[in-house]
């Protein structure tokens, strides 16, 4: 894995944004060639306004994306399992997820794969852990009774199938989860640890999130920042390079 340690939340966000931008440019998307970006559903779909508004206001309205290319799990579908299966099919049809970007819960979960989720699970209905319900309360005016207890989630296995995984971890309250994810063993109680077995993982975090890691680990990866920062240097834009796809070699591999 690559562990990228930045000073604070905004720097971590900026590094991650630049990395994603570079990956898209390197991939060279075009008609019929989609860069498939995976994002966690996270928020339970029972309150449609919350999740769709969140995604619209924070992402879709700022980018040039065609609505047909947006696929969101529908928590109100009549047959939820069929909805989940169809979602897996859509991922296959799009050529698989190129890059999955996600966060981590304080209990070490990825999307809503709560502790105890199978590390080879697929997209399915999941009951939420108390930790997640508490975290989601902020989207329901702090009223716990309004927070849905079930959610549709992509599986750990589904994310493992992505060609690259990027996990964003910021804040001291996530420090223990980060420790469990990268310094301890692969364990279904800390589902993010599954990515130790993924060939291409990037963890982007801030100083506070490293509080539970060994000093040795932090020093090692900070020492690599010179090399890692090359990954976010500006590339020639697609327009400047013309219509041919730019399959430049990745400057650094795992």
């Amino acid at each position, binding site marked *: 894995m690559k562990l990228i340690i930045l000073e604070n939340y905004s720097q971590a966000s900026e590094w991650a944004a630049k990395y994603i931008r570079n990956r898209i440019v390197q991939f060279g998307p075009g008609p019929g060639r989609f860069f498939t970006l995976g994002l966690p559903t996270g928020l339970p779909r029972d309150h449609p306004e919350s999740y769709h*508004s969140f995604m*619209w206001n924070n992402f879709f*309205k700022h980018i040039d994306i*065609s*609505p*047909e290319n*947006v696929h969101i799990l529908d928590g109100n579908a009549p047959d939820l399992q069929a909805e989940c299966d169809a979602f897996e099919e859509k991922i296959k049809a799009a050529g698989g997820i190129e890059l999955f970007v996600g966060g981590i819960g304080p209990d070490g979960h990825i999307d809503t794969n709560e502790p105890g989720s199978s590390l080879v699970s697929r997209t399915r209905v999941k009951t939420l852990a108390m930790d997640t319900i508490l975290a989601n309360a902020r989207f329901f005016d702090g009223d716990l009774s309004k927070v849905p207890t079930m959610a549709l989630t992509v599986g750990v296995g589904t994310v493992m199938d992505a060609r690259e995984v990027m996990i964003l971890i910021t804040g001291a309250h996530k420090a223990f989860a980060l420790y469990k994810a990268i310094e301890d063993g692969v364990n279904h109680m800390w589902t993010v640890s599954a990515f130790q077995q993924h060939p291409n993982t990037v963890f982007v975090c801030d100083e506070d999130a490293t509080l539970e890691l060994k000093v040795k680990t932090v020093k090692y990866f900070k020492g690599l920042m010179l090399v890692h920062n090359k990954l976010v240097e500006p590339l020639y834009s697609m327009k400047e390079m013309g219509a041919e796809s730019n399959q430049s070699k990745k400057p650094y591999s795992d």
Partner: protein
Amino acid sequence: MPSNKSVSDAPIVQFTNCRILRDHQLQREDLWVREGKILNPEKLFFDEKGSADVQLDCKDSIIAPGFIDVQINGGFGVDFSLATDDFRSGIDLVSQKILSHGVTSFCPTLVTSPPSVYHQVLPQISVRNGGAHGAGVLGAHLEGPFISKEKKGAHPEHCLRTFEAGAFQDLLATYGSLNCVQIVTLAPEMRRSSEVIQELTKRGICVSLGHSVANLSQAEEAVQHGATFITHLFNAMLPFHHRDPGIVGLLTSDKIPAGRRVFYGMISDGIHTNPAALRIAHRAHPKGLVLVTDAIAGMGLAPGRHTLGQQVVEIDGLNTYIAGTKTLSGSVATMDTCVRHFQEAIGCSVETALEAASLHPAQLLGIEHKKGTLNYDSDADFLMLNDSLYVQATYIAGEEVWRQDVLGM
């Protein structure tokens, strides 16, 4: 552009690179318009999977709801209180010209006139939507003749009337018809005014207090019977007195019925009201302030003599007096000048100044669900302004109806 799978075939326009006035703040958001209404882009994206057909770069303009002028007596040589043969074309001319001032809806105002004038003129005023032909007509504002002799201002004394004999029937007989009447200004101290106010309010007509010597309790009683507006605050009423604030006291009265708000018109042309007085009123009751022009026929024309109903008016610069006197009669201010002057005099935010000319008049007339805001599903009547609040372009129902000529020709 990607193929559009929206439910309607109507083109969708996305105004980008602008700051829009929404939720009382200037926000950096795009404005989406379809079929003459403001569109919700989120619904469009998720439910209809639609996208914009046309994207317009607004070059960092401010986009605000169109101005609504609820007191305008005429302009450009047209006098709404004169029963001429080509009255309708007069309304058309004014409604077209005020687009450049940012006004997208207005209430043609008639000053105190003999009944014959009302009977001839009112049937020729019809409520209609705005468009390329001009600003929308919301309905007439009848200022008088049921007003006080002592505070007649520029209104002709021989046309003043009372309704003590037949109350509402007298009023109806005087005006002839109330079909397209939106606002009536009267003096509440007149006998039987309460009945009249109630009857007018029942018919959805906004009752305004003005040209009156009412004390605060008389004014409060009028509000309790349904009055919701004050015509040009401070002018043509008793001055504020600390033991009897008069109509001005309504701004901070505790006898206003719950859930109701009293609005008050202010002519912020720099002449009718001293800036300090403007600030006092605004600080006392900021949410009720409605900017009006009270413009007369001479507005938009060179200085000289013009009419205002039965009176002759002399214009000298920004001052408009009854010929040979020092009695103010209307103004030659334009709405956008009023907004700019207001913002400067009060020192308030751009948002506050813009809302005083759009949101507040819409709330006064109870039409804020479709006018006066940029909320989703509202009528797409809006303006593009620069940072100094000069109107660059006017849009009605999503169509551009006026644009500032860059060459200034």
